């Protein structure tokens, strides 16, 4: 079985986000970019499934400009077998990504499509669900545990839901989106980084995949959240106690 994993290049989670002065978006120039943490978890899970013997190949795909090959190299260094770069300069939103993934799935015919539950830049949490709909595949979202049963051709997925865990059994092929506690991704080791340089990255365009990218909405304005309000200086403990009692009502 082949596993397809999509990985997104986003602003590193530890970077302080700055909004561009013209309010058209956030500043990405000279900012550290990394693989979306949830995508990293999805890739780690795919590698674990492969190592357990339930899959034979892990293919990673990233979409966007030339820089996406950086995250593909990272993914290959973690252990993915080959990469696909869907090259486009146009901005991509979940609907377009889902259509592109659908086209790739037709071409690659994976038994399992693994995605992060959401990207930390736009927090959409839509792609996995949409692509499952297009493919008419069963979906397990927010997976906190994944176990592939090769003999039954199915996968068991545990999801963290309000008040407990939900266990699903999905017939393969299926779509799974990964949550934070699924696993802890491995580091890219030196020998694997060296090997990754020789692994192939295929380049395709949306046109070749026969997917038309349409922009369904315009971003009017991106603004920073309100600044935290300044503190109040009090002169005595009695005043503080008064505030705690009468304003905050905690005493």
């Amino acid at each position, binding site marked *: 079985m082949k596993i397809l994993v999509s990985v997104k290049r986003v602003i590193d989670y530890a970077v302080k986000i700055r909004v561009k002065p013209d309010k058209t978006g956030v500043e990405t120039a000279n*900012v550290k970019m990394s693989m979306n943490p949830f995508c990293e978890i999805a890739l780690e899970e795919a590698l674990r499934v492969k190592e357990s013997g339930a899959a034979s190949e892990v293919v990673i795909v990233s979409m966007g400009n030339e820089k996406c090959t950086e995250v593909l190299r990272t993914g290959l*260094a973690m252990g993915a077998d080959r990469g696909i770069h869907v090259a486009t300069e146009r901005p991509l939103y979940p609907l377009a990504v889902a259509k592109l993934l659908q086209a790739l799935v037709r071409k690659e015919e994976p038994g399992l499509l693994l995605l992060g539950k959401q990207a930390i830049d736009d927090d959409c949490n839509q792609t996995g669900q949409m692509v499952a709909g297009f493919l008419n595949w069963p979906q397990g979202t927010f997976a906190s545990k994944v176990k592939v049963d090769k003999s039954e051709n199915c996968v068991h997925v545990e999801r963290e839901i309000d008040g407990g865990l939900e266990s699903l059994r999905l017939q393969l092929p299926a779509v799974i989106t990964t949550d934070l506690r699924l696993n802890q991704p491995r580091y890219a080791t*030196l020998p694997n980084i*060296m090997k990754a340089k020789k692994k192939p990255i295929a380049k395709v365009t949306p046109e070749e995949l026969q997917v038309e990218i349409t922009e369904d909405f315009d971003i009017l304005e991106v603004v920073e959240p309100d600044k935290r309000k300044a503190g109040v200086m009090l002169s005595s403990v009695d005043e503080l106690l008064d505030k705690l009692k009468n304003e*905050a009502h905690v005493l």
Partner: protein
Amino acid sequence: MVSFARGFCRLKFTKAPWSFEVHCSVGSELFVRHKQISAFTSVVRCHGEYSKLLSCYSLLTHGQRRHNSEIPEVDRVKKDPRYDRTLRDARFSKLSNQDLVEFKKIVGDSSVLTEAFELEAANRDWLGKYVGTSQALLRPRTTQQVSEILSYCNTRRLAVVPQGGNTGLVGGSVPVFDEVILSLGAMDNIISFDEGNGILVCEAGCILEKLDSFLAEKGYMMPLDFGAKGSCQIGGNISTNAGGIHLLRYGSLRANILGLEIVLANGQVIDSLRSLRKDNTGYDMKQIFIGAEGTLGVVTKVSILTPARLSSRNVVFLGCKYFTDCQRALKEARSNLGEILSAFEFLDRKALDMVLSHSDGLRDPLPDSKHSFYLLVETTGSCFNHDREKLDNFLEICMDKGVVADGVVAQDNQQFRSFWQLREGITEALSKAGAVYKYDLSIPVPYMYNIVENLQHRLGDLAVVMGYGHLGDGNLHLNISAPRYDSKIFSLIEPFVYEWTASHKGSVSAEHGLGFMKADAIYYSKSPEMVQWMTRFKQMFDCNGILNPYKVLPGSSFKEGSRYRNVSNSS
């Protein structure tokens, strides 16, 4: 919930929809944060009446207040036998009530702390190894107040210990007996920043990490960085000439400090707070105060040159089989990484095991292979592709030549941080593991690790000896971890470590300073003539010896009537 840890009172209230956190620092400032759902709505800050508040809340929350006014003398001698050889200097006066009245006149009632529980954290170092019995802690807010305090103490012959973040490792920042604690923590204002030239002027009590965050907004960074950055203060950094992980790249504080404002023991203010790169007019006075550990004067303001904060950063964690491989890797890093190399740290397997077993959430980056040595190499530059190409080339050479057995490259900032935590978390892990004897040695790199092996051989099963540190600077942190402080262990370590270091032309203190712990060990690294001149400096700047007594200089060289005495026979 209430806790009284290290001089902080922390109270938490949770009552929907409000939750409150109250933080009281030992310096009588009270911070109240309340938040509704997730947004902070305001911060309430309240000055003064700290003790009143504490008792009020401890009653409210049934918290227990800890009192600790007596030092178990046996205990502290066991931790450092130098206490046994040190007597309180009879020239110093004892603190009287009148003194407290005078102090209150200078700094105000709320900035004079006298309650035992308020002084507890300031009376002991963070390892709990050095403990004093000071009865008063002063928190001046201005240079003028520092000057008046010192002038008064000098006249009254009251000994004073200047204190910054109290993160030192050699007992230099805590009182030995009943010295008055002069805390600089309330002097934490940033005075100016020159965005064109990266020159920062600030007060001595600014916390290193806060300065670094301030500079980050401006595209600059502090030229020094180490594990204690969240608590240590710039004045203390300067007074101890602190080194850290970026010394390799940005040089020592001696190169980066452009000017200082110093208050001498008699209250005189020496203002050399210039912001000039070059100034060859006469003797460079500020240099004598850098690394003087508060024995010559109190640093109150600082002018410091800060480098640009560069965006491209890489961190790799490498495993090596032998210490000689670490040295070869350093050589390769110097020639292949060149100007982008910003840190080159090493730790041995025992140090890694120590940090892994005492820190939550950290994992071995190379779980499949055990190595005897690990290297943490950091590059910082302005162009990601350029740096990455150099780094890949360096790594490839190291792998091809067999210098490095295995390694991992951090892919994102979170991984950077977790690799760094492995190195920076060792000190804290050691303090959790039990008793720890710490030595900070400069040793020519080729023999650097021999002392670790020799000492482990001497100690056998009694203790675990580990080495880590700044390989690029030839600075070894030799640490001996034992279940408890023990005179037998101590006698096997000292004076062996010092003698060994001296015989290999090393220094017994690379960056920690001498403090109380190593004051007598100065002769292992400095000639009697040099110590004699140091004593003269001390006499000149502080003729009554009130500033940070019993530290830096050996006891015998600074007793009453010792002026200009020949000290060559004291070792």
